């Protein structure tokens, strides 16, 4: 993601126009390639060495150069810093304080005595004193985009940076493939965005999403999720976007469509799985099979037709070797209306294989809580979670399930 100072755009009237790079510009592609090479060569070095190397580049002061570097930094993995250094530092600082108080005319004499008392050369003490600063982290891994793709990624990041300043975003996609449109809705919920959608015309899906500026709490992480969602829209050939932005004092509009030179860095709808999902799937499947009663979990990919033009794209799907399946659909704090709609129209036969996770914050509404209790009495499976369901909560539920084959 690009920081505010790296966003390049012009404004005319109340419209904002991002400044895109030309992905076929040979000089730009060469610069992108050179930068990726620099990052690759620095794997195994300290972050400070990488920073120094980049600072020496003749284009270091250029905003495009800095933007490309920022995107490449996001593709870096750094090693952990030593966490024992802080205590060591305090011990050395205390020893140094005592010596300073004793008095030395020149600091070279002070350094010699200190080194002798600590029992290490002063150069070593000096080198280790602040070795837990981020600049001393080791670059352990770097994932290149490829030069041309990096330029595309820059163009996409320019739009994402503006979306972080949106109060409302309206996205329209047109595609004959129903499954693709449903997948987009699934990702919308994956990213936990506050949105309304409608399908007014045939093959056309319109989604109105509240922007980060319309959200009071956790707006930063919400904004990042909106940015993670946007590249899915770019997987469609025919799309358009209108966003209401606030840039400084100005209220501006951003209008984009499929003709702009922006490309998704996701290959397909399976491109991005939020971290909490990945972690849950990893931890659950790593349990001994007896502990999870042979259930295996995967990212929900099904599109379940619940009748009356209602579809469910579950977040997680649990599969049993006997052929049984359980789908989990999660409802976060902003999805009270969706939850009511889903449970009110749920048919008894679908209720057998569907489990609904409800964010605890939703249950703060006592009216909704008692309504949910009523649904549970009628056999609907509901459990609550805080940020994300825990493996323990799911195991408790699955433990009660009689394994029968039944896909909706």
């Amino acid at each position, binding site marked *: 993601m690009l920081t505010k100072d790296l966003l390049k755009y012009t404004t005319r009237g109340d419209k904002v126009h991002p400044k895109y790079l030309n992905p076929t510009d040979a000089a730009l592609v060469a610069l992108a390639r050179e930068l990726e090479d620099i990052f690759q060569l620095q794997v195994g070095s300290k972050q400070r060495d990488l920073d120094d190397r980049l600072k020496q580049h003749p284009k270091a002061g250029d905003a495009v150069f800095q933007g490309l570097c920022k995107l490449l930094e996001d593709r870096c993995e750094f090693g952990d810093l030593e966490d024992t250094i*802080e205590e060591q530092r305090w011990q050395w600082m*205390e020893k140094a304080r005592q010596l*300073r108080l004793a008095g*030395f005319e020149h*600091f070279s004499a002070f350094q010699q005595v200190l080194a002798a008392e600590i029992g290490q050369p002063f150069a070593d003490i*000096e080198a280790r004193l602040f070795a837990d*600063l981020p600049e001393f982290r080791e670059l352990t891994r770097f994932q290149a985009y490829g030069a041309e793709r990096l330029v595309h990624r820059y163009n996409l990041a320019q739009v994402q940076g503006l979306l972080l300043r949106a109060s409302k975003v309206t996205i329209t996609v047109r595609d004959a493939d129903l499954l693709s449109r449903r997948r987009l809705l699934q990702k919308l919920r994956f990213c936990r965005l506050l949105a309304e959608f409608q399908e007014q015309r045939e093959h056309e899906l319109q989604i109105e999403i509240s922007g980060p500026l319309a959200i009071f709490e956790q707006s930063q992480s919400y904004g990042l999720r909106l940015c993670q969602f946007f590249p899915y829209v770019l997987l469609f050939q025919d799309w358009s976007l209108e966003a209401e932005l606030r840039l400084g004092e100005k209220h501006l509009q951003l209008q984009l469509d499929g003709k702009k030179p922006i490309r998704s860095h996701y290959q397909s709808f399976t491109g991005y799985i939020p971290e909490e999902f990945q972690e849950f799937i990893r931890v659950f499947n790593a349990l001994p099979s007896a502990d999870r009663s042979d259930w295996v979990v995967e990212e929900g990919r099904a599109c379940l037709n619940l009748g009356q033009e209602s579809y469910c794209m579950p977040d997680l799907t649990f599969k049993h070797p006997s052929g049984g399946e359980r789908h989990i659909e999660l409802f976060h704090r902003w999805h009270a209306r969706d939850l009511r709609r889903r449970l009110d129209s749920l048919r008894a036969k679908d209720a057998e294989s569907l489990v609904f996770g409800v964010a605890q914050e939703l249950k703060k509404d006592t009216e909704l809580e008692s309504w949910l209790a009523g649904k549970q009495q009628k056999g609907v499976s509901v459990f609550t979670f805080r940020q994300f369901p825990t493996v323990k909560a799911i195991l408790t539920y699955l433990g009660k399930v009689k394994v029968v084959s039944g896909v909706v």
Partner: protein
Amino acid sequence: MAKAILRYEQGSLVLLAEASAAVEKLPGFKWDTRTHTWRAPAHAYRDIVIEAVKEKLPLADEARQYQALPLQLREPIVPREHQTAALQAWRHQNSRGVVSLPTGAGKTILAVLAIALIQRPTLVVVPTIDLLQQWQGILERYFVGSIGALGGGQRHIEPITVATYDSASLYIETLGQRFGFLVFDECHHLPAPHYQMIAKAAIAPFRLGLSATVERSDGGEELIYQLVGDLCYEGQINEMVERVLAPYDVVSVEVPLKESEQEAYQQARQIYTQFIRRHRIDFSGPQGWQEFIKKSAVLPGGREAMDAYREQKRLAQGAQGKIDELWRILQKHRGDRTIVFTQDNAMAYLIGRMFILPVLTHQTRPKERKRLLEAFRQGGVDVLVTSKVLNEGVDVPEASIGVVISGSGAVREHVQRLGRILRHQEGKRAVLYEVISKNTSEYYVNQRRRNHHAYQRPTQVHHTRG
């Protein structure tokens, strides 16, 4: 006449009125062609309501979303003379205005007294997370009930809330009608484009700006006076010494550059000044620096000139002689609580490594930062090296010696750094050392700075031999 309705809408006021005659009598309203409504900036709320009452216009006020707040101090405060005078001057200006007081003169307590007096929900806006926590602590001490916080990951709004400028500017459109009183700490930050929004998009009729240095080199203080109210009280450092602030000395120490440093300095300086002369860049005006940046980016030789500018500055700020001098000062004031200020983190860590001293920068982890400040207050740590994080606000009353190794050259920064060591304590005499590289631009900047009233007192200049 049918009642006109006044509403708050995303940082502005909307008037729903059938008769345009009603609108014409009210200040600030303009016809918004986008929404076909009369719209005024939220900060005009007070004038609008006063005018409506004066003109006996029936007005349904749906904009204000707060009520008077009965507030009582948990413990009595006996204001000092200058605090009483400042409060009176502010009241005299209809509870709007800016109070300029040096660090350590009790600006926070003045605000506490003002909040207790005004009895309205209050939003206090501060520049940093450290200050947010510091204000929260003080307000909790004096007022019953929880104090809200907006910033640094905290987002709970209470009738009295402290927010950082960054967070307040993000959310003011949803909060602008919920507070009747705005307090801007370090209000010289307010003219920044994003921060202006806080004052513009809030309806609060009562406003108080606090700063030790309101004047800005770009003349931005005029905007502060427009949005917060005129300067109503100004207390000078030199007037408060002994009574309110610790007595102090400013000592300038001029150190010569080493021969090799001097040579490299002259070379870089020549490249830089030649570029300036060739392109007639005028540094006497406020736009000089901007012009240099622009021209150096596009004109031939510009890049070399910018590099040369940085190099000569680096040489002057990081001269070896300064390190030697710093050691001499630390040895002279052994045991005294000392803060060493640098222009950048690199210099701060260089000093830290050479003398094995604790360094406090924005890279210091919050836990260790807290530990460092606590140890400094208790005396377990006697010297702290810092770049800019201690320039503003954070309370370190025990510090009595300040050593400025390098800085931006701005008067504000130096007055703020001086303020760090001036909190009054029995028997304390503070000393601010400014270590300057001789025959460099630092020397001339230092001379200009001496015109500030904080320096209008006996000052010593020490020369060290090269």
